[in-house]
């Protein structure tokens, strides 16, 4: 791994981290931690293998560790807890969910896959490999994530942090 290859991956790591965490400083902290761990585990990286996938998997694992330790604020929604949409009729005109806060409402494991698909344009198989889960799980989380995001954006599942736009 040389520095130039690493530098070319940085913008994508930052984009993904920003999308995952929302907060710029927290995202860059995560990127920094990822870099430090990457340098620390440089011996595990095999020349010619996919540097991007390796870095993303490091970032993913760091995030899992952080969530486990409760370092980051997180939505610990049960995946199925909110699957019954209820339409909010009284405030449709006032409250429009913007995409970013809608994204925040997805469980981590759904948001992560949605972003890897939409932003990184990774194949489902690569994502499965990266996250260490079966492709079927990738597909079901993608499907749930997309549908939930659609419902939130449509205002069919209004939740706490709505943004009021005029």
């Amino acid at each position: 791994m040389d520095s130039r290859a690493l530098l070319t991956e940085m913008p994508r790591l930052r984009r993904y981290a920003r999308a995952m965490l929302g907060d710029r400083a927290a995202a860059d902290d995560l990127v920094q931690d990822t870099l430090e761990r990457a340098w620390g585990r440089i011996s595990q990286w095999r020349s010619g293998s996919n540097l991007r996938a390796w870095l993303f998997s490091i970032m993913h694992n760091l995030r899992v560790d952080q969530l486990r330790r409760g370092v980051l604020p997180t939505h610990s929604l049960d995946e199925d807890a909110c699957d019954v949409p209820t339409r909010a009729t009284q405030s449709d005109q006032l409250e429009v969910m913007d995409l970013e806060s809608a994204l925040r409402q997805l469980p981590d494991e759904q948001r992560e896959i949605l972003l890897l698909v939409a932003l990184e344009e990774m194949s489902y198989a690569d994502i499965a490999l990266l996250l260490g889960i079966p492709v079927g799980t990738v597909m079901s989380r993608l499907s749930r994530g997309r549908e939930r995001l659609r419902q939130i954006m449509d205002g069919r599942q209004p939740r706490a942090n709505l943004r009021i736009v005029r």
Partner: protein
Amino acid sequence: MNPLNITEDDLHAYVDDALTAERRGEVEAYLAEYPADAERVRAYQAQNQALRSLFNPVIDEPLPDNLHALAAQPLGAAVNREKQPNLKSLLAQRLAAGLLVAALSGVAGWLAHGHYHPEDHMAQVTPLFRQAAVAHVVYSPDARRPVEVTADQEEALVKWLTKRLGVPVKPPKLGALGYELVGGRLLPGNSGPVAQFMYQDGSAQRMTLYVTTEHVGQSGTGFRFAREGQINVFYWVDGQFGYALSASIAKGELAKVATAVYDQLEPR
């Protein structure tokens, strides 16, 4: 109803443009028949598009200095962060780890040659600057036996260290900067012998130059700076040698000497 066996997975693969042309056509035929699914697919496509519009600008943002430095030169970045006044203690811990891994990365090229299994050995490798600083702390205060071979036997010292390290090593002359050679010694490094030369100025301020060949295979680096307690260390890797210059003098003065050492030791 669904003779083509279009599945939910197919719809997502359609959204993400991951289908063969043939299957794609089949999904389109299916969507023409099922407007609710077609609406869903359009919404998902719009999500992809909206997410890209929202976050792609991050790609074009200039990289923050600390990340740039960390990607380019892990150690340099770590040291820069040390200077930031608002450093949290948590970060300081990470910094220590960062310094360690930075130096470890220095030997990675060598490890990658396959002489060793990195997993077995990485943990035992002490970074160059730390080895040098420890050697400095151990030997420089010693009034009676700071070196094994004294400067009046410089020729013998050079011959001996050259023989033990297997490559020509000799102490640079730093008299012009006020530092006279006291002598030198052989030390154990991470995996073999390393050399230490000791210098002293008029006020008995001592400085040591640590020379190792354990960084063979790594491309050269610029000067790097580290601080270990009271000891300032400039170190760099050049050709088959790693050098570290340690003293408890101001960074600026040490940098001047390091530059002189560098100039003299350059093979070109």
